[in-house]
């Protein structure tokens, strides 16, 4: 497993464009925090930082981490990898997780910019729990990226759908509006979505004591696990289509 992570890390280091999220979000944060400060809403700084991190992590997964399989196809390595499908799936999961985790430092960047550049009252009451939940959310978005990467092999036009896979999910994740304000059916969908649980837990962990922590962490773990299972199943299924000739790799 370490070989897969190491190989992906070496590829990432030599692909600076993949670090775009890390570089761009701090610039956005300048705008966000400037607004907060000018309108005397400093109390919302922590929530803003968390939301920006979650949006960054999601978009990084959808636009960057999901490209892993498609990159393999473009390089002609996918066909050869299918000679070891089980280990390739493991390699793919590890590589996607590593790429998705590039968004993790964004959380720290946001806190630092808010506190040191703007002097806003950003505080995290339970840093350990915050880090754990951020890691779980990262695993969830990596699993989403896996699902997306399967879709990108199956449907050539999937790339043009990528944009459509951001804002609707920010809504479902409770990043733009509180989940409670969503219309009935959407509220139910949001309650089965790991991002909404992760977002609320992160906000609560920053604010102070977290009610029902055990139950909520368990639910988040289960939802992330389910997302991972669906992602892996989708990629495995798409790769099996390649063997039947239903999907052509053109490599």
């Amino acid at each position, binding site marked *: 497993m370490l070989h897969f992570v190491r190989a992906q890390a070496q590829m990432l280091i030599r692909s600076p464009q993949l670090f775009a999220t890390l570089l761009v979000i701090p610039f956005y944060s300048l705008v966000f925090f400037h607004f907060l400060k000018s309108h005397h809403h400093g109390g919302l700084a922590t929530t803003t930082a968390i939301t920006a991190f979650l949006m960054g992590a999601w978009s990084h997964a959808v636009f960057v981490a999901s490209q892993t399989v498609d990159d393999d196809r473009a390089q002609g390595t996918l066909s050869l*990898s299918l000679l070891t499908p089980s280990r390739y799936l493991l390699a793919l999961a590890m590589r996607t997780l590593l790429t998705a985790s590039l968004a993790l430092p964004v959380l720290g960047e946001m806190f630092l910019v808010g506190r040191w550049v703007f002097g806003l009252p950003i505080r995290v009451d339970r840093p350990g729990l915050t880090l754990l939940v951020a890691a779980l959310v990262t695993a969830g978005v990596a699993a989403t990226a896996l699902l997306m990467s399967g879709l990108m092999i199956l449907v050539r036009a999937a790339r043009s759908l990528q944009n459509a896979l951001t804002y609707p999910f920010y809504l479902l994740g409770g990043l733009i509006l509180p989940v409670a304000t969503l219309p009935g059916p959407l509220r139910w969908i949001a309650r089965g979505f790991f991002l909404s649980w992760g977002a609320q837990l992160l906000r609560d962990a920053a604010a102070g004591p977290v009610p029902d922590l055990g139950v909520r962490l368990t639910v988040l773990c289960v939802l992330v696990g389910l997302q991972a299972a669906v992602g892996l199943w989708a990629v495995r299924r798409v790769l099996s289509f390649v063997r039947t000739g239903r999907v052509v790799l053109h490599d």
Partner: protein
Amino acid sequence: MAIVEVQELGRVFTPRRGAEVTALDGVTFSIGEGEVLGLLGPNGAGKTTLSRILTTLLLPTCGTARIGGHDVVRQSKEVRRLIGLVLGGDRGLYGRLTARQNLLYWGALQGLGGRTARQRTDEMLERFGLGARADDRVELFSRGMVQRVHLARALLSRPPLLIMDEPTNGMDPHAGAGFRQLVHDLKEAGCTVVLTTHDMQEAQDVCTRIALIDHGRILHMGAAGELLARIGAPRTIRAEGVCAEAAARIAELPGTVEVTEQGSLTARLDGAEAQSAALAVLVQAQATEIAVAPPGLTELYRTVITDREFAL
């Protein structure tokens, strides 16, 4: 003992629109251990489809194929342990990784332990003369070097069967010669090789048997010498300074004749009688540099495979 056994193997592709395409049509053959089988045929003949089925990358629509006694459909895991695949061209490696990193990654994919993978990687890098460039990125390599990394990758797991799909595509003559030596060495070591190529000289040099494939069927199969004797491909007559009148008289003989504006003639004529008649015309017309070459695989190929004039 046969390491590859193929029985009535077929593959039909059904596109979403348009007619079905039969890529393989009831192919039957076997390959013994230590043999080098050359698959020759035009583009779209079914060679790559056959290679992909043998490597478990594609399912057949009918028939069976067994590698080392294991069925490629039902026992794909066992089959994959026995095969190495080499694809031609620049692609198939991670350009941003070094040769060593690529090999270590593929070693891990093949389930080799860390120490074994490192040991074999060093071994392969030395064997293929890549030691000095082992830590350079593959995207900086020449095509010949990329091909050597491909070969090293395929041999990492020491497979008894190597399937190579146009491995010398784009190699320079020295690299090609090195490749031929490698195939000889592999054969000596008991490795079985299935080689898809468009290079007739290469096939003649390294293959113990040749299969001529077209329209998804094996048209002829056997040792090169045996096929040449059986099919009776024509000798090639070449001459310089051939006048238009002499060229026209030779063109009337049965066979194919090509003449350039400068008077260079290449004729492949059917039967000894036509060949003698052509030689007589050339001598009479005082043509120069008259040469008669015995048929090789190129002539055999051109006799058996229909000329599609650039059509696929």
